[in-house]
């Protein structure tokens, strides 16, 4: 790690003011410290956000949906019974995310902004395209964990388990910077690195996520999450699938289907969602949706297995909404 200064502001406005160029925001540190140890981040100043009041915890006010503070540790989302009743997919998606220690340290905001796990990206000695180099080494290299869908110059995959689950509930995020505040759909935060966009999200310099919001109507959906791993615990997703829908008298409405681990961004498949709209998640409809979800897939040398795996996981996740 490089040497840096440290500050722990008490208020959001102080925090935002301190996040000038050369500064990084520190929350749980589970990703940032790893990046710093690998020399991939070299901030001059760390602004520790954990002393800021009001960004931690969650609330659900009548008719106003769910609000989750960005500094809420993941483990709190996982453990809160009331939250589990309101939105069971949170616990489902977090149970197998990383480890208990990392979920204890890691925050919601940090999870949303974590960088990809590509081993070329994480290797300090490899000047990969995403880090400003000329090529993606994974395309012709070791790519068993990489993207089969939606990749451009970089084939790293979106690593979060929580994010697909939140997107399946149309989550929004609130952002703040010293210049002001804005909100956006969580799905719009992510961008597949391409062209001049050598980054994974569109957060502006000095900007923070302050809150995640899920509307009351979205909370009426039923959701399900499944994940395939390389071992039975502590593994980033080979493939993950989050699905949600409002089911009225056996008929699906507002269907959402989002895959993790297969593309540079959380991979929402609108075509498959449309095909399921009005269905009863019967076998045939789910199988067709699974095929649609993988349409356009372009596997690399070693990740072709993700196709049948994702197809089956999509089918199962969808079926589990009604079975």
């Amino acid at each position, binding site marked *: 790690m490089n040497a840096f200064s440290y500050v722990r502001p008490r208020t959001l406005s102080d925090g935002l003011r301190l996040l000038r160029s050369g500064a990084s925001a520190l929350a749980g540190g589970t990703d940032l410290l790893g990046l710093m140890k690998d020399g991939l981040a070299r901030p001059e100043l760390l602004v520790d956000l954990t002393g800021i009041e009001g960004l931690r915890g969650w609330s659900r006010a009548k008719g106003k949906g769910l609000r989750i503070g960005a500094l809420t540790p993941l483990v709190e989302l996982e453990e809160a019974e009331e939250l589990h009743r309101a939105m069971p997919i949170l616990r489902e998606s977090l149970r197998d995310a990383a480890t208990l220690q990392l979920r204890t340290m890691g925050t919601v905001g940090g999870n949303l902004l974590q960088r990809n796990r590509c081993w070329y990206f994480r290797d300090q000695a490899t000047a990969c395209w995403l880090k400003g180099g000329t090529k993606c080494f994974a395309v012709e290299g070791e790519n068993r964990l990489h993207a089969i869908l939606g990749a451009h110059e970089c084939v790293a995959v979106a690593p979060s388990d929580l994010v697909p689950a939140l997107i399946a509930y149309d989550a929004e995020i609130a952002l703040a910077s010293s210049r002001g505040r804005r909100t956006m759909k969580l799905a719009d935060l992510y961008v597949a690195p391409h062209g001049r966009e050598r980054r994974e999200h569109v957060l502006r310099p000095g900007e923070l996520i302050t809150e995640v919001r899920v509307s009351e109507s979205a909370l009426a959906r039923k959701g399900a999450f499944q994940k395939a791993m390389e*071992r039975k615990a502590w593994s980033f997703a080979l493939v993950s699938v989050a699905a949600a829908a409002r089911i009225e008298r056996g008929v699906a409405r507002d269907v959402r289907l989002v895959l993790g681990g297969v593309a540079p961004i959380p991979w929402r498949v609108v075509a498959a969602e449309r095909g399921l709209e009005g269905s009863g998640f019967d076998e045939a409809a789910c199988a067709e949706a699974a095929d649609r979800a993988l349409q356009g897939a372009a596997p690399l040398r070693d990740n072709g297995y993700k196709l049948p795996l994702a197809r089956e996981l999509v089918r199962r996740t969808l079926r589990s909404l009604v079975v």
Partner: protein
Amino acid sequence: MTRILKSIEEFEGEVSESLVIVDGHDLPPARHDGGSPEIGRSRRRIDATQRVTGRARYTQDLYLAGMLHARILRSPHARARVRRIDTKRAEALPGVRGVLHRFNTPKTPFRGDDVIFREEVRFVGEEVCAVAADDEDTAREALALIEVDYERLPHVVDLEEALGDVAPQLESDGNVSESGSHKRGDTKRALKEADVAVDVTYRTSTQLHNALETHGAVALYDGEMLTVWESTQHVFGVRTGLKNALKLPYSRIRVICDYMGGGFGAKNGVGKYTIVASLFAMRFGKAVRCVLTRDEENLAAGNRSATLQQLRLGAKGGRITAIEHTSWSNSGQGKWIANPTGPTNTLYEVANVNTRSYKVVTNAGSLSAFRAPGYVEGAFALESAIDELAEAAGVDPLTLRRRHAGAGKDPITGNRYSDKHLLECYRIGAKEIGWDRRRAGGTRGSAPHRRRGIGMASQIWGGGGGPPAYATVHVDPDGSVVLTAGTQDIGTGTRTVLAQICADELGVELDDVRVQIGDSAGPFGPMSAGSMTLASVGPAVRLAAHDAREQLLGAAAGVLETPKAELRLEAGAIVSKGARTPLGEVLGKVDNNTVIGKGIRFPNADDLAQKTFSAQFAEVEVDVRTGEIFVERIVAALDVGRIVNPLTAASQVEGGVIQGIGFALSEERIVDRALGRVMSGNLEGYKVPTVKDVPTIVVKFVDRPDRRANNLGAKGLGEPPIIPTAAAIANAVANATGARVRHSPLTRARVLEALALAGIRD
């Protein structure tokens, strides 16, 4: 009378002959009537409290006053010539004390080379420079300031690429060299005459040890003695390595390993980091610490070679008539290979066998011994192939093995086994797993798309140990005992079982024995490897304790004025005609005298083969749509002679099985061929089993003393349990699904591919 005897020993599959100085006579086999106060009893580890309180001091935990920190600059290239090194900027950094590299380091012979920094570096991670600084951060920063001018050279890292014609040839005689062969009978003819034959190719990926404590050393030089604390499986091996490298006599080198955090074969001798720490220590007269990071560990600290193995088997009339087995191992920059054809040569009584094993040099990190090196890889291939043959011949795979597993002689030397109960292992294991529930083609699983199957595999390995090994037993006037032995406890429980043997033979309480090991200042002992610690050191301890007891009884006879023949030593008391006098009370009369018992390991019989045998049975479920394997249960039935401590022995078996599960399902070093770089060099990319990957493991011991092996009747246990696990799982997967995966680990990709090839969807 002192004399020289011949001994035959086996180490990691290699049999060799040695000469041993002996004095006096060995003891007859220990009693095995259930009456031993200590041997055969489950005992908590005597160092358990130290380990659970964090007080156990490992090499990594040593912070000596004024200590310098050394770090190593490693080659970023798979193959390059080091033309020039500029250290000016690094040396100008405040806190940097010195830099070592090929242009300023004296000759320090190391494993066949005469230097530790080679002109041509031959794998990513090879040592190029070393820096000593006041602290770790400074040393690390200094590495980044060193400029090295490399001339890149063509490289090859992949085993099968290295076999091809277009690969750069790394040695004058090419990349491939034969390292062993065995032939008996006529396999060509037998295969021609066979009813059924299989011809199959298997692959195993490179497995990384990943002991939790990385390799490391702390060296201290006081102008007279070089003292080195090292995380090692052999303090005496490190001492020899330092003697060769630094030209110091043994008497001026002391190597200490008190607690160590796992080795699994990778810590069998001196490392370049040891020599670096020692050179700096000798230059600066200060303590120097050089401990590898996790990434370094996985680049440059050894591995189990990847293999490519071809097998042809023939059967006739329901018996195996021929096995041909050719194996290529990726030894990286290693100087030897483990032999994957070992099990093929010796496990079964088959008339016609022809095996050949090749070492393939590549620009990757050197192999080092990894828990049953060669045999784990070889057993995966052989035991998978036997199942494939059984399937083709329509014979139950266990029945087929039974027909060949009962031989009483080693098929290569013709020597009789000192003892063997493999068929008993089959019987115990088959009963425990419920082999009669096994159906050809498997059964339905517990959920849709899940299939269930049972498989098994067998194991042969050495584990007889041998000389030289020494122990002394000091009994102090208060009746307390210090056992000193030439060995180290690498986590296997050596301290505890040696204390048990000592207490048992001497006649004192376990708590009265303090064990002093892991120090080359004591008498010599073997490497904690090759499953040979207990069978080598245990008999010496028993003899030392016996010697001490005889002396104590003699002393007591004098003090109590009673004939020695009427005295016994039991639970720390001299017993005479029903009266018990505590040992301390008796010895108090001769205060400040010390009784010293001495023991050695006598030679192995030169006409016997000491082997360990076992079988493992696996029950699995396979999700045929996702390729996920659920190992539900493993039964391990082992014949390793007498069990000294059933509690710690069972733990060791479970550990071996769990590492075998990792080898079978998830552990794989992944190297980028173009860059030559290990991509899965950390514990995120390299997947060792977690607690959730572990099934129910049932451990059963035959527990019969091998009276012809040594005076204790015990054999080694470290390696046998990892050998058959992967094959048993692969066979269970094939039984469950009908799909045969011939490449370990059995990842999703490989399972799904095999299932697709076999056309299986449900």
